[in-house]
């Protein structure tokens, strides 16, 4: 049996009010590819942070080469040969490949002048790139590299510190098929050289190809460990789900009315070769599920006029509407509650009042003058009906909690006449109480006849709140689910690009 390189035992990590990891144990052997899977929030990222020495565990030990580390610091983790290839790549675009690989560890020449030996760095990086079969040079600027190539740079960086365990967090989420295959080859090669890889992904197909062993996390616990021979999609999905979903569902007061918003053969810039067809009726909440990068946000941005639409059309109550910019969308009553409320939803430094009326200012204006009375009234009204907790409507939006900030974004639209509302991750970073309020608000809107699209990566939310669920996979709608078909299993199958209800456990 191969030697154990890294061993985590009894790791627990609690944050105030949350247990992110609960008595988790994990073992990595030399030259092994360990697949780590689990849903969003299962505890994968926390686990990786502990391995990297970024956050200390609340309890438990990390053992590297049999030596116990009660507290692992970033430096110790690096010295022990643990390296990361991040989901969001941490590279300096303005520097060349060699400089990135040796960042912070530059070889210096010229004595007191401390000049960087650029030629030396490049000479040392060249063999690493060759080993990875990279098709770029050490002096190529990183900004000229594709995502896949940048990943190679990260891997080269890992090799340059003699990494023995490379942790890859969703490495293929932005790669094409060929690039993915190339990466899997590199992993096989690393393995052959005795380097271990912890491979975190949602893509079970890749796990099937490359993993020697799979550990499944759910709600901060290890719920299963599968040997290579035991791997199948069905088994993995069943292990990943299987928790009790709290019932959040508030049924509509009346059935959805015909009419609403039809998206016909829409082509977004993110997936120029895919067409999207989707309908949402007045009075229903349509959940839009899918993995990160499946094209849900691009769809929302296209419908709201942020990104240029490359083809197809948007119909409101059967009539095609032109949406060239957000102003057009707003005029049609199509509103977006964006994913990043601090960046796109609010002007944080402005008071609640001015944020609420930012989109509707001109409607209440006379001769282009702000109608301060109306503004105050609208803001007060919205603050009251949405129970925005703040000292007054003159408080800056930046002083509010996440939930209240989201309500301010909502208030902006609710003071107008919504017909279609797109919520992009409406409850991300929001506490449980505010979540329930936002769900109730969404249902209230639907009952008033608004067609609602809710983009969400939170499975509980998708299944608990929606009347119907559409699932996206790589830029197109991979399936629709009616309420009686709702299950995490079904949503996940569609999200990873498989069809519903397979005859057997398809591989």
């Amino acid at each position, binding site marked *: 049996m191969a030697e154990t390189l890294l061993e985590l035992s009894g790791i627990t990590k609690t944050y105030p009010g949350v247990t992110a990891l609960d008595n988790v144990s994990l073992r990595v052997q030399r030259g092994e590819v360990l697949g780590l899977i689990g849903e969003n929030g299962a505890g994968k990222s926390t686990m990786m942070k502990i391995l990297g020495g970024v956050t200390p565990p609340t309890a438990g030990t990390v053992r590297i080469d049999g030596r116990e580390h009660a507290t692992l610091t970033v430096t110790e983790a690096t010295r022990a040969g643990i390296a990361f290839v991040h989901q969001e790549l941490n590279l300096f675009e303005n520097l060349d490949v060699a400089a990135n690989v040796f960042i912070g560890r530059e070889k210096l020449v010229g004595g007191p002048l401390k000049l960087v030996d650029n030629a030396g760095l490049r000479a040392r990086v060249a063999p690493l790139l060759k080993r990875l079969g990279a098709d770029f040079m050490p002096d190529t600027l990183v900004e000229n590299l594709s995502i896949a190539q940048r990943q190679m740079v990260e891997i080269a960086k890992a090799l340059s510190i003699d990494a023995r365990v490379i942790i890859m967090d969703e490495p293929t989420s932005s790669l094409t098929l060929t690039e993915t295959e190339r990466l899997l080859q590199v992993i096989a090669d690393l393995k052959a050289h005795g380097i271990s890889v912890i491979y975190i992904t949602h893509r079970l197909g890749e796990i099937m190809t490359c993993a020697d062993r799979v550990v499944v996390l759910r709600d901060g616990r290890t719920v299963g460990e599968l040997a290579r021979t035991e791997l199948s999609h069905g088994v993995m999905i069943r292990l990943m789900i299987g928790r009790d979903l709290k019932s959040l569902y508030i049924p509509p007061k009346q059935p959805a009315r015909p009419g609403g918003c039809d998206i016909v053969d829409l082509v977004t810039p993110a997936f120029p070769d895919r067409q999207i067809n989707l309908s949402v009726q007045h009075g229903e909440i349509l959940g839009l599920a899918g993995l990160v990068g499946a094209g849900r946000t691009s769809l929302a941005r296209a419908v*709201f006029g*942020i990104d240029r639409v490359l083809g197809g059309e948007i119909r409101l109550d059967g009539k095609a509407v032109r949406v060239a*910019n*957000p*102003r057009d*969308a*707003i*005029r049609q009553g199509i509103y*977006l509650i*964006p994913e990043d409320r601090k*960046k*796109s*939803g*609010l*002007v*944080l*430094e*402005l008071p609640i009042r*001015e944020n609420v009326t*930012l*989109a509707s*200012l*001109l409607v209440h*204006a006379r001769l*282009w*003058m*702000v109608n301060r009375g109306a503004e105050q009234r609208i803001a*007060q009204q919205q*603050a*009251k009906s*949405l*129970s*925005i*907790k*703040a*000292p*007054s*409507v003159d408080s800056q939006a930046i*002083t509010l909690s996440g939930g209240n900030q989201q309500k301010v974004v909502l208030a*902006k639209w609710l003071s107008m006449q919504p017909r279609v509302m797109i919520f992009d991750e409406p409850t991300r970073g929001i506490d449980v109480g505010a979540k329930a309020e936002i769900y109730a608000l969404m249902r209230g809107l639907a009952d008033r006849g608004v067609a609602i699209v809710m983009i969400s990566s939170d499975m509980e939310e998708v299944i608990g709140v929606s009347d119907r669920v559409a699932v996206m996979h790589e830029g197109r709608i991979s399936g629709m689910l009616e309420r009686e078909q709702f299950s995490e299993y079904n949503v996940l199958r569609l999200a990873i690009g498989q069809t519903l209800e397979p005859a057997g456990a398809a591989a």
Partner: protein
Amino acid sequence: MMKKELGLFVLLIVVSAITGAINPAFLSGVNLLNMANLIGLFGVFAIGEGLVIITGGIDLSVGSMFALLGVVFVDLLTKYEIWWPFCVLLVVAGGLVLGGLQAFLVTRLKMQPFIVTLCGLLIYRGAARYYTTDTTRGFGYGDEADTISDIASGSIFHVPNTFIFLIVLALVMGIVLHRSVYGRWLYAVGKNEEAARFSGIRTGAVIATAYVISGGLAGISTILLVFYTNSVSPSSFGNFYELYAIAAAVLGGCSLRGGEGSIVGIVLGTALLQVLQNLVNILGIPNSLNFAVMGTVILLGVLVDQQLQARRRLAAAAAGSARAAAAATLARGGQGA
């Protein structure tokens, strides 16, 4: 919101009082009116600069615009003998067009404001010098410029017309900036362009308008400045004036990051700069130190303001958490605290 302006006003009064105490000539009617005239001259285009700075941009081209539009203006009046109202209209239109060109480059072609207006600075100056072959343009005797000259450099009850014009302009622009929908958009765009766009605001148009207004005000300033100096030397006319405008705006509370500033602040900033220049003369400080004094005051002013703001933020945060503890809810408590 007005705290900054109040502080600036107090500073202006204190500096004036001290200078006046050392040399009473500072407070003489002649000197005060002279300063009022200069404040009027510089304030007009400082307001335009302020608008551009609030969008998060910058306009480095105004000084060179004065030279180019100035020589054209003098030639229109003297060489082509065009009726003066048309000359005025043409020069203001010229400013609007140049501002519009810069706006197009910034908002449509997504070029950086610093670069666009720096190139404007170079190009307009060069064009002015080439057009005149570097010769000074001025008014001869009997040129048909009396009426406009009287308007631009005259006074009403001893108050310089330039100063009166600045006050009127400040009132109008104050309403535009602080009361109109456009003003609100300008601040929103300056603070967070993306959120403004997500709220359906045509951010490009909002920003472009600021550059166009700045250009138009530069056109008006050209006319006022021409009659202040009575001649236009293309290589030096208006040199560094864009920096006076930027300095006034920054001193007046505009942040180069955008989204901050007020008309009152910009006017007070202009006034303080003129007082400083005047003080250098009147207190017998070597004239060569003029810029150094100005630089030092701006540096200290911005530094103190930043420190005060940081402290205020801390205090606000503390008060905020105290309020949260008291759980003042708008929904429950109506108006709240």
